[in-house]
C-alpha cells in the first residue's frame, strides 16, 4: 500500500522561528512535492524535486526552502516563519513518467499555525 507520511499533523510556532516540515514516502518515487492549501485557493505548489539533491521552484516559493538528501525524504523549511504562512501543508509523491497520467499520492497534511 502506498504511503506518504508527514511527521506532524499540527504545529504551532512563533513568528521568526525556523520551521522544518518532514515528509517520507515508501514507494521509491522519484518526484516529491510540497503544496500549501488555503480555503478557496486549492493547492498551490511551493517546491518540487525530481531526484535526490535536486529542487525546483513552484508557484509560490518565497519564504520557503527545501532539502532532498535521500530519495524517500523531502523537507520543507520556513527560514523565518511569518503569520501569513499559517496554512495546511501537503506533501505528495509520484513516479517519474513521460506519460500524462502523473498520479500523485498525498500525505495527511500538517496544519501549521504561526503566532
Amino acid at each position, binding site marked *: 500500500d502506498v504511503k*506518504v507520511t508527514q511527521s506532524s*499533523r499540527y504545529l504551532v510556532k512563533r513568528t521568526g522561528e525556523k520551521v522544518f516540515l518532514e515528509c517520507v514516502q515508501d514507494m521509491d518515487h522519484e*518526484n516529491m*512535492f510540497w*503544496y500549501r492549501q488555503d480555503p*478557496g*485557493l*486549492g*493547492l*498551490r*505548489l511551493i517546491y*518540487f524535486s*525530481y531526484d535526490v539533491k535536486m529542487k525546483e521552484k*513552484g508557484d509560490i516559493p518565497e519564504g520557503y526552502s527545501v532539502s532532498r538528501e535521500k530519495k524517500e525524504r523531502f523537507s520543507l523549511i520556513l527560514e523565518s516563519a511569518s503569520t501569513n504562512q499559517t496554512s495546511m501543508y*501537503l506533501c*505528495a509523491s*509520484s513516479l*517519474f*513518467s513521460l506519460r*500524462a*497520467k*502523473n*498520479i*500523485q*499520492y*498525498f*500525505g*495527511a*497534511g500538517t496544519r501549521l499555525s504561526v503566532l
Partner: protein
Amino acid sequence: TQLLEQSPQFLSIQEGENLTVYCNSSSVFSSLQWYRQEPGEGPVLLVTVVTGGEVKKLKRLTFQFGDARKDSSLHITAAQPGDTGLYLCAGVKRAAGNKLTFGGGTRVLVKP
C-alpha cells in the same frame, strides 16, 4: 487568477439528490484528474481523464472531459453522506513535466 476555476465553491444538498461540479479553464490540458479530500486527510485520486470527450463512471460518479480538453465535470447521482468532502480538479500539461495545476476546490456537504 487561477488557471482552473471550479464552481460552485460550496454545495449543500440532501441525501438522494444529484449534483454537478464544474472545472473550467482557458488552457488545454493533456489530462485532467479529480481528487476527493476528506477532513484531516490528504487528497485521494478518483479518476484521470485523458481523451477529449471522454466519459468515465465510478459507481454513482460520472466524470466528463470536454471535447477541447479545457474543461471537465463531475456528476454525482443520488448523493449519499459518504460523498461529503472537498472535490479538487487538477490539470496536467506535458510541457509542465510532472506538475499538476489545481482548481480551488468544491466543498460538498450531503445531509442525511
